[in-house]
């Protein structure tokens, strides 16, 4: 069974702190090592300045073997920004650009490996 968590926070430092706490809790449920959880939170924090407007929305799907996090709505062109994608790519197991209506979002995936 997949749980989905929806979260809307201010697009700033306070919001990033809340997101890190939430992702920490979700990563804990999957028994992920803390450095991988930290890098997922770092990826989210890296995207935060690219969010449109004053609010950052986060959707997290908690599967048995992976955590999928969508972040948006992002400024136009963010998902095709090769430099930003390269950085975020290095922090998580998968990055995919998705569209919700007219808005760009990025989907980040963290997979639980055998080693944790």
């Amino acid at each position, binding site marked *: 069974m997949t749980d989905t968590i929806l979260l809307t926070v201010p697009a700033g430092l306070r919001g990033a702190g809340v997101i890190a706490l939430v992702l920490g809790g979700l990563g*804990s449920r999957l*028994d992920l090592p803390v450095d991988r959880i930290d890098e997922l939170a770092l990826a989210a924090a890296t995207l935060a300045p690219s969010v449109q407007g004053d609010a950052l929305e986060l959707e997290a799907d908690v599967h048995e073997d992976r955590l999928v996090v969508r972040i948006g709505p992002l400024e136009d062109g963010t998902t095709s920004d090769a430099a930003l994608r390269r950085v975020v790519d290095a922090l998580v197991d998968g990055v995919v650009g998705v569209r919700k209506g007219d808005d760009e979002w990025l989907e980040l995936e963290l997979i639980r490996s055998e080693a944790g």
Partner: protein
Amino acid sequence: MIVADGRAHIDLLEAYRATGDRAARDRLVEEMMPLVHSLARRYAGRGEPVDDLVQVGAIGLIKAIDRFELERGVELSTYAVPTIVGEIRRHFRDRSWSVHVPRRMKELSLRVSRLVDDLSADLGRAPTVAELAEAADVEEEDVVEALETARAHTPASLSTPVDASGELTLIDLIGEDEAGYEALERGSVVRTGLEGLEERERRIVILRFLKGMTQSEIATELDISQMHVSRLLRRALAAMHGRIDEGDGMP
């Protein structure tokens, strides 16, 4: 018997290395504790109890003893001073916070940060929240909060001196002769972002994103905590963001 000279230190160290005799190392630590006390007193009156500084200095001493190579041709005490001072300075660094944090959470955060390093060494990978909670004897929610609190520390600069003279910095420990450093930098998609960073931040970003080292590996290489690597990366990425936005989208 009181060990009075470097030769006796070496004898104890050789006994410890040859037989794994912990008593020999304990004796060596005991004999060298006056050095730790002396160095700790230099940092008295800066808001931390001297007893605490002696304790963390002793950790530095043990690290120095474990790492000292007999063929170095220097006195053990000479080798130990920068390690002891580095540990004391790390203690001060870990005690500085950029936001108000309740004392209980500060203490737990510091304890969890150290447990991350200890368990990483034991397990060969970073621990999970559950493993940290068990080791710290607290709830998992407390560990999650403590980890986030740890990131609220004021990050120390990689140029923070780590030796008694103040001339050796963390960035020196990285080494100037990074293999392929320039080659990695050339053509890198993050080049534009790197250009605006200070040298110390550039290097840690290169180790993580271009050399592909994990935070734990970087922490081991630089002899700093994984949490500190995390904080430095966070700061560097925040600084890079605007410049990446203005970059030319290299391949």
